[in-house]
């Protein structure tokens, strides 16, 4: 039977072919949009059915019983949740690309949209299989397509290099994935998720830890977790903005998806101790990358790089929550705590997917409108794109996690998870403090992003800002509205999230909707959702009050030129550059935040290089490799006699060895 899921993939592949032959950006874009939209519709039909109805959709394509492997679209609630996000965000990005891609006049539209739809198909497929073998196949398909998308501006050697780095790193990681899968196949004789779960449970702790490590590294690499995801800040800016939005919004979340899949149900059942360790490992990597990503983003002046670092940071939050979940999963009495972590992770995945793609789109709008990504050289473009600017404002507020946006709703759950987790296991408290600090730095860099690009006098350095086409504004506006909607009705979204985890909300969450702001019982019992509606009502009342107060004086309003200490200045001199933001802080940062834990850590440059894996890890690695390789290759001097000696010596050696081993 052909369910709506199969149709999704058929549509995407057909779309890839159809739009692949188109010659003009517009037609190709529209065609691709139509196909992606249709695919999204079908995916959502299936996804909602699974998500709300529970159960699972299953359509066998073919089976390899001898291998214990089968290719089937099998959608359980978790996959369904991801499928919804993937298709939704991808649709927005595709719509956006219609207008946006017109800046690539000289490139081939067909290639782009074909690859884009293959990419989407790959991601959707990853969410729709229940078999590690085909999971890996689709995973690689996704990597491949995204690689060619990242390197779309391949005339630029830097872009080609970035894409290469991305491809190689992720591919190495997924080789680990393959090894892990094969190990478990050897144990269980099957590639099915369930079987591997059982095999993992049954395996000796050493094997289990090796396999888990392989899985974790693979998925952390994809998710951009520091230090594995070193490819991310290079690759995401390199890609066309629509693609960056998908990469950052959805693809790296699939890393979290993988972690969820692997650790799902591993807790408890004898494995609890080991799982606790793993939870702590995952959480600490999460905290680390949240910290590093946040602080690196603060000093970044390239719009898209800044967002890329913030992706690292936000994924760190997700992994922190996942770590809490893994730590407490299946431990008696702490189920609600584990569930809290799980919900936090899932909810933040959802929200980050939405606002991060939104922000990448607005970064794309900056690029489209001014021709540069350098925040130092842009400014005041909100004049030419009011809608996009408003959307961008919503985006940065969500990113900074300010109420009443969705970013706040999910971060809040994560804080509660980590603090009440800290009640059980105190290191999580430190994680909470770091998380708070990071969220402040998030506010800092999101403000920097928005204020320098959209507000203030418009720059005269870049080209004169030009307005953006409606499709771009539309895509951003829609995403922004979703941000607000989820922010105002978090419980609605959290129901879906918990449905995706085929668990129900804790009772307090359910009745907490119009209840008090929060009630956290003792003993780490799950707290209530805050009630944004109530909060917003109060806020609006206060706002009204403020306006009334303001009006009391019946004072008239008069518009005046800005006051610059009484002197006249050219507008451009008055711009407060992006690099000016936080410079003292960035200078002082090691002094402030690392002298205490890390005594006498040398200056910021060294610190940055300590964070920058390229300088101290990958480049030396590559150079060392090259040196070793050259050493080996120098043995081929080209003189025939030498080679002849190899032959003869090899001959003797072979005889000797064979005599030794053959008995």
């Amino acid at each position, binding site marked *: 039977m052909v369910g709506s899921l199969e149709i999704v993939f058929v549509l995407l592949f057909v779309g890839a072919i159809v739009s692949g032959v188109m010659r003009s950006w517009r037609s190709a874009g529209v065609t691709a949009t139509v196909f992606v939209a249709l695919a999204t519709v079908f995916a959502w039909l299936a996804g909602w059915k699974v998500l709300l109805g529970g159960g699972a959709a299953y359509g066998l394509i073919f089976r390899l019983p001898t291998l214990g492997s089968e290719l089937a679209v099998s959608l359980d609630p978790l996959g369904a949740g991801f499928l919804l996000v993937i298709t939704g965000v991808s649709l927005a990005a595709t719509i956006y690309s219609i207008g946006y891609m017109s800046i690539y006049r000289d490139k081939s539209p067909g290639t782009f949209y074909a690859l884009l739809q293959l990419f989407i198909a790959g991601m959707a497929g990853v969410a729709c299989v229940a078999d590690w073998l085909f999971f890996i196949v689709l995973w690689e398909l996704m990597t491949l397509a995204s690689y060619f998308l990242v390197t779309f501006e391949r005339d630029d050697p830097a872009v080609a290099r970035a894409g290469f780095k991305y491809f190689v790193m992720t591919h190495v990681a997924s080789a680990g994935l393959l090894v892990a899968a094969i190990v478990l196949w050897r144990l269980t004789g099957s590639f099915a998720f369930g079987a591997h779960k059982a095999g993992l449970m049954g395996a000796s702790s050493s094997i289990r830890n090796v396999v888990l490590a392989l899985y974790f590294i693979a998925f952390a690499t994809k998710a951009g977790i520091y230090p594995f995801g070193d490819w991310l800040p290079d690759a995401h800016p390199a890609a066309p903005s629509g693609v960056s939005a998908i990469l950052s919004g959805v693809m790296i979340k699939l890393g979290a998806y993988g972690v969820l899949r692997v650790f799902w149900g591993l807790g408890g059942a004898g494995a609890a101790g080991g799982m606790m360790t793993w939870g702590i490992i995952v959480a600490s990597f999460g905290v680390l990358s949240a910290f590093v990503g946040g602080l690196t983003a603060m000093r970044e002046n390239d719009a898209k790089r800044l967002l890329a670092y913030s992706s690292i940071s936000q994924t760190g939050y997700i992994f922190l929550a996942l770590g809490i979940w893994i730590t407490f999963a299946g431990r008696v009495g702490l189920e609600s705590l584990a569930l809290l972590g799980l919900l936090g992770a899932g909810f933040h995945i959802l929200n980050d997917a939405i606002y991060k793609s939104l922000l990448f789109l607005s970064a794309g709008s900056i690029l489209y409108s001014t021709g540069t990504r350098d925040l130092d050289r842009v400014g005041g473009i909100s004049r030419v794109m009011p809608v996009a600017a408003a959307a961008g404002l919503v985006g940065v507020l969500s990113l900074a996690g300010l109420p009443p946006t969705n970013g706040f709703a999910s971060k809040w759950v994560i804080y509660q998870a980590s603090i009440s987790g800290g009640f059980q296991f105190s290191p999580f408290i430190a994680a909470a403090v770091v998380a708070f600090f990071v969220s402040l730095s998030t506010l800092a860099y999101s403000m920097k992003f928005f204020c320098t690009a959209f507000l203030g006098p418009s720059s005269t350095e870049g080209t004169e800002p030009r307005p953006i086409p409606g499709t771009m504004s539309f895509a951003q506006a829609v995403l922004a509205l979703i941000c607000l909607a989820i922010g105002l009705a978090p419980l609605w979204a959290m129901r879906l999230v918990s449905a995706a985890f085929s668990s129900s909300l804790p009772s307090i969450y359910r009745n907490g909707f119009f209840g008090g702001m929060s009630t956290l019982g003792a003993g780490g019992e799950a707290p209530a959702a805050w009630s944004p509606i109530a909060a917003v009502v109060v806020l609006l009342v206060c706002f009204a009050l403020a306006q009334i107060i303001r009006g009391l004086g019946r004072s008239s309003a008069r518009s005046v030129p800005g006051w610059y200490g009484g002197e006249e200045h050219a507008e451009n001199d008055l711009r407060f550059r992006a690099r000016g933001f936080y410079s003292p802080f960035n200078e002082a940062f090691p002094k*402030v935040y690392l002298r205490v834990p890390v005594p006498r850590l040398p200056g910021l440059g060294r610190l940055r290089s300590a964070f920058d894996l390229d300088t101290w890890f990958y480049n030396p690695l590559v150079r060392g490799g090259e040196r070793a390789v050259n050493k080996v290759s120098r043995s081929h001097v080209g003189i025939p006699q030498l080679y002849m000696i190899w032959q003869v010596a090899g001959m003797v050696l072979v005889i000797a060895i064979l005599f030794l081993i053959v008995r």
Partner: protein
Amino acid sequence: MHAGTIAINGLLALLLAPLFDGVTRKVRAIVHSRKGPPLTQTYMDILKLLGKEDLRCTTSAIFRFAPAAAFASFLVVALLTPMGAYPGTGLNGDMIVWIYFLTFGAAAIILMASASGNPFAKMGGAREIMLLLSVEPIVVASLITAAVKSRSLLLPDMSAHNFTAGPSVSMAVAGVALFLALQATLGRLPFDIAEAESEVVGGALVEQGGPSLALLKMALLMRQAIYSYILVQVFIPWPALSPWPLMLVSSAVKVAVIFVLAAVIEAVSPRLRIDQAMTYMSRVLFVALAALAFAAIGV
């Protein structure tokens, strides 16, 4: 939480904040051996500002509505803050919401500053954030200490727990840390880096005038009051007084005392550079983390 206590919170915040400011100015004057303005001076200023005309250097909507937004958010925070003693008055909010609404106000001010397009303002906004970055962790750390002690994220619970359980090492240390950071949270010398009239001519507020300025001033004053109230309510809630209005009075008095101390410090100390301020804050943060550690091991 019945509406009454909420109203009480709001009124306290709106009415007492200028008074506390008046107290500060008086004390500063005394230290400088001046006569100084009357305690009600700040009320006068604000009322006067309300009457003045509203100057707009840009048509940006953000610039226009940010003051009200900042005011509103700080007012909400005020509603969330326990101001009477145990049981706390006000909305039953938890510390995360509390902190984030404070941040919301700050964000509103920063956006406004950037929208004005005035470099001084932007610089002020940037400094605002930097100060936030160095101060908030301390506040958070001390509050989480309280949370750990009281096993609750709710500010009233924290205050209630401390109230009943009596003083403890970790709470004391945390309180000290908070107090040490208070000067900055109050935005006073040596930490009035964000406004810093003499350098960035009022920083974020430079382009504002008339009622907008009044709202902003009011908002900032409320923020000062809120921080002090948190210190008082969560870390030194004692003693218990029988009818609750007395509690209100006592806590108000305690806050006033804190303002006096702050004013004295302000009067005698010059402004720090931002990096010096951060170094200082890092030390304080260390104290706060120590408190957290104590709390973790349960002392």
